[in-house]
């Protein structure tokens, strides 16, 4: 039996920048999918300091409200998830696409491969998207996702989370991550969460309950700010 590494001493190198490793054996699926050859450092060129302006496609008015995409309202605890997206220099990332997906309040995805015997909700698909505004702000209305079991190890459960996909200013800044909820008792046994070895970096994946985002008599608010790697290109950085 593999020993659980301790967080305080476990393999954190400064150059990781708080990112998880590719190989984290406790998360079993990494064992055959993590590359073994060393990564090659890519010099900075126009190919990666540019990036898709993917947000120009039509985004529906209700795409950021996951509670209004069907005939009725989904069951569960209605929440507002809002925050800002920043680049590596701390500047707001403007007009950039944010995509999310999540399980319903019972811990079930609409995905056909999700076999968890929890009910589907006919009023909840669990997918949303929006563009950040000029201050890098985004906002979603949804329901709090449930925890759900998976088969990674005996009695394995994922802490409640919302998947986030972000583009940011450049190919370099592309990020897919998961937003967690404060105080979840499942963190300590979840190898995906724990794959981030640095305790401070883990905190950056956990939203905070926010009374200002909370709307009285209607929905609890959670705040989740996101910092992308890479920076917004300026004309000076672009060779002609």
């Amino acid at each position, binding site marked *: 039996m593999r020993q659980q590494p301790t967080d305080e001493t476990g393999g954190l190198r400064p150059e990781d920048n708080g990112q*998880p490793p590719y190989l984290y054996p406790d998360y079993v699926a990494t064992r055959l999918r993590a*590359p073994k050859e060393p990564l090659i450092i890519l010099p900075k060129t126009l190919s990666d300091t540019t990036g898709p302006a993917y947000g120009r496609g039509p985004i529906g008015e209700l795409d950021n409200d996951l509670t209004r995409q069907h005939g009725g309202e989904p069951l569960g605890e209605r929440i507002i998830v809002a925050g800002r997206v920043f680049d590596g220099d701390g500047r707001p990332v403007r007009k950039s696409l944010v995509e999310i997906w999540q399980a319903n309040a019972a811990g079930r995805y609409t995905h056909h491969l999700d076999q968890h015997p929890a009910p589907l909700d006919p009023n909840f*698909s669990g997918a949303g998207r929006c563009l950040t505004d000029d201050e890098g702000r985004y906002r979603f209305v949804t329901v709090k996702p449930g925890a759900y079991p998976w088969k990674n190890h005996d009695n394995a459960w994922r802490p409640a989370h919302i998947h986030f996909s972000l583009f940011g200013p450049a190919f370099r800044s592309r990020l897919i991550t*998961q937003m967690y909820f404060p105080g979840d008792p499942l963190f300590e046994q979840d190898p995906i969460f724990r794959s981030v070895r640095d305790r401070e970096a883990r905190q950056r994946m956990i939203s905070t309950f926010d009374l200002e985002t909370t709307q009285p008599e209607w929905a609890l608010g959670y705040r989740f700010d996101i910092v992308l790697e890479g920076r917004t290109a300026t004309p000076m950085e672009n060779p002609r």
Partner: protein
Amino acid sequence: MSPEPTPSQTIGPFFHDALLDEKYSELVSLDHPEAIVIRGTVYDGAGEAVPDAMVEIWQANREGRYDRSTDGRHDPPPDEDFSGFGRSGTDAGGVFSFLTVKPGPVPGPDGQLQAPHVMVSVFARGLLKRLVTRIYFPDEEEANAVDPVLSSVEDQGLRRTLIARDEGDALRFDIHLQGDGQTAFFAF
């Protein structure tokens, strides 16, 4: 002081409904006179096809211009109809596919030109962060030989994994995440 980045987490197995749409893999229309197909299979370290990966590409247009919003150059003009971005899931057989055009050469470090190439991101269950690679073109031997990024890959076997194979009706670019013939992956 720069803020610390948000850590990456796996895309997981359940992203399809939220992120994929058939048309995202078609960067040009089928009747585009210069359209090419780039397809490949994603394999894991046991040589099994990976049926739940997502592959994204980012590339310049035929003139070597990236989409105008982030490409600061003024000449040559951008192609209004070509975003340069594509996204494809892998199917049950681990296969992804794109319909696109071959990009032109783009500037590299120190004023050199880079050989035509396509930037690639791979996401999958079991990948805690994306993998980055590049697709180069088999009919560009001269440009490939002096490309600064290809040249920086010292291992010849690894270097070969970055060049697509011409299969007549399509270019094949298989992605081996691990094991024999592992694809060359990059870090920034």
